[in-house]
């Protein structure tokens, strides 16, 4: 309520005179709302809304009271202050306009690079129309990234526009390492065929870029820096992630091997004590038991149950399978095959399965898994 009063604006008045209550009653009769009324010495102090205050002049006439304006509160006070300071309002408007206009342009360019000189990057950005003062909406960070990555000295460039600041980060161009002996120098090689998704060089020089396809054994980060200065070899280090595709296929025949009864059976006896069954012997390696008779031994203290079974011999036989079943078997077998070759630390990003039916009824399932994994391995050269 207080907040609403402040928003709409109100005035604090003192009603002085012979019978201030009479004026209060007249105000109420006129539909005015008075709030926070309290008696002061010789006066009634009350608050009225700004609109109601205008009505007061008419109501006072004829009454033997005077009304004194104590203070203005809320919106009207702020509006009054602004009315008196037209110059201030104008200056405020101009400043706001200037801020809005200034926010449409680039104010600062921050370049985070070590080997490639900062001036060179800034100059390149200015030539591309992304210097200080350029319009923010004309900046296309993807385009700038593409152009910067085209430079052979840059392995990975990141361009980011945050507010009015354009930030550029150049990766893979670390500062010149200290001269080391050839001993202990190493390269980072790819240990499988993949497409590079991320490369960050700690030491050495990046030989590949993001998006580039590499084969197993290709050099990813070179420790040989002798072209910069003779005798520079380092132990190349860095983190390289690549997208690798794994594929496995399995062909399932339209027949399924199932165990069926051969027609031969033998009688066998089992003793059951406390739910545990003890068989006298196992007639066949694969068998199916059929209960023939059950006898409970009443003379014994321990509850023993004697069961007589018919043990049917089971032999493997090929039985035709439905196409859906064949497809399911092929898919599961292909998946099992793939699980054996997939590295445990690989992050799977896509899985697809394709099934193809052959004219003879067999089904070939191919499961393709795309992973992202660390592919760099350091090895001495």
């Amino acid at each position, binding site marked *: 309520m207080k907040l609403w009063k402040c928003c709409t604006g109100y005035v604090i008045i003192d009603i002085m005179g012979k019978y*201030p*209550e009479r004026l*209060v*009653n007249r105000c*109420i*009769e006129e*539909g*005015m*709302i*008075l*709030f*926070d*009324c*309290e*008696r002061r010495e010789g006066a*009634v102090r*009350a608050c009225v809304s700004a609109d109601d205050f205008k009505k007061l002049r008419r109501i006072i006439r004829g009454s033997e009271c005077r009304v004194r304006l104590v203070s203005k509160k809320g919106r009207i006070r702020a509006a009054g202050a602004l009315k008196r300071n037209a110059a201030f309002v104008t200056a405020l408007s101009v400043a706001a306009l200037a801020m809005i206009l200034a926010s449409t342009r680039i104010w600062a360019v921050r370049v985070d690079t070590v080997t490639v000189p900062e001036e060179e990057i800034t100059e390149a950005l200015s030539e591309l129309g992304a210097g200080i003062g350029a319009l923010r909406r004309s900046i296309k960070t993807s385009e700038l990234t593409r152009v910067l990555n085209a430079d052979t000295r840059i392995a990975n460039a990141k361009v980011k526009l945050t507010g009015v600041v354009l930030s550029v980060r150049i990766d893979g161009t670390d500062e010149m390492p200290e001269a080391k002996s050839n001993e202990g120098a190493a390269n980072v090689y790819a240990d499988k065929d993949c497409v590079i998704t991320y490369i960050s060089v700690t030491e050495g020089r990046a030989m590949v870029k993001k998006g580039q396809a590499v084969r197993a054994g290709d050099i990813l980060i070179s420790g040989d820096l002798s072209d910069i200065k003779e005798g520079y070899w380092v132990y190349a280090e860095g983190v390289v992630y690549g997208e690798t595709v794994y594929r496995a296929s399995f062909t399932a025949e339209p027949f399924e091997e199932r165990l069926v009864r051969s027609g031969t059976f033998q009688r066998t006896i089992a003793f059951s004590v406390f739910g545990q069954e003890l068989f006298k012997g196992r007639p066949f390696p694969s068998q199916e038991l059929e209960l023939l008779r059950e006898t409970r031994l009443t003379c014994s203290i321990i509850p023993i149950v004697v069961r007589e079974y018919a043990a049917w011999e089971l032999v493997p036989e090929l039985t035709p399978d439905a196409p859906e079943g064949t497809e399911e078997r092929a898919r599961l077998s292909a998946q099992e095959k793939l699980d054996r070759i997939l590295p445990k630390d690989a992050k799977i990003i896509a899985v697809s399965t394709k099934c193809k039916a052959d004219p003879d009824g067999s089904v070939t399932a191919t499961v393709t898994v795309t992973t992202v994994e660390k592919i760099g391995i350091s090895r001495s050269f």
Partner: protein
Amino acid sequence: MKNNNKTEGGGRKAGAAKKGGRRLASIGLPADSDCRLPCITVTGDSYVRVEHHCGVLRFSPGCVRLYSRLGIIRIEGEGLAASSMDGDELLLDGRVSSVSFE
């Protein structure tokens, strides 16, 4: 707190209002369904809401006297102040000690 409802000297209007209240009671309707009668709600000893009053007779921090159809309502207490006042309703803040009809 005392709540005295004095019946003496209510005047013609007050008598009519009282009769009206009794008639409503005789046909099983609550007395507050007659919008001419004042309705006084006291919450604890801090708030008093007076509905259907007919104006302010006297207003001071120790005593507030209001016109109504049943006569003059007298509210006594300490630091009484009207937090809201319009043609039909009056909200009083402060420490209320008694509400009575004169």
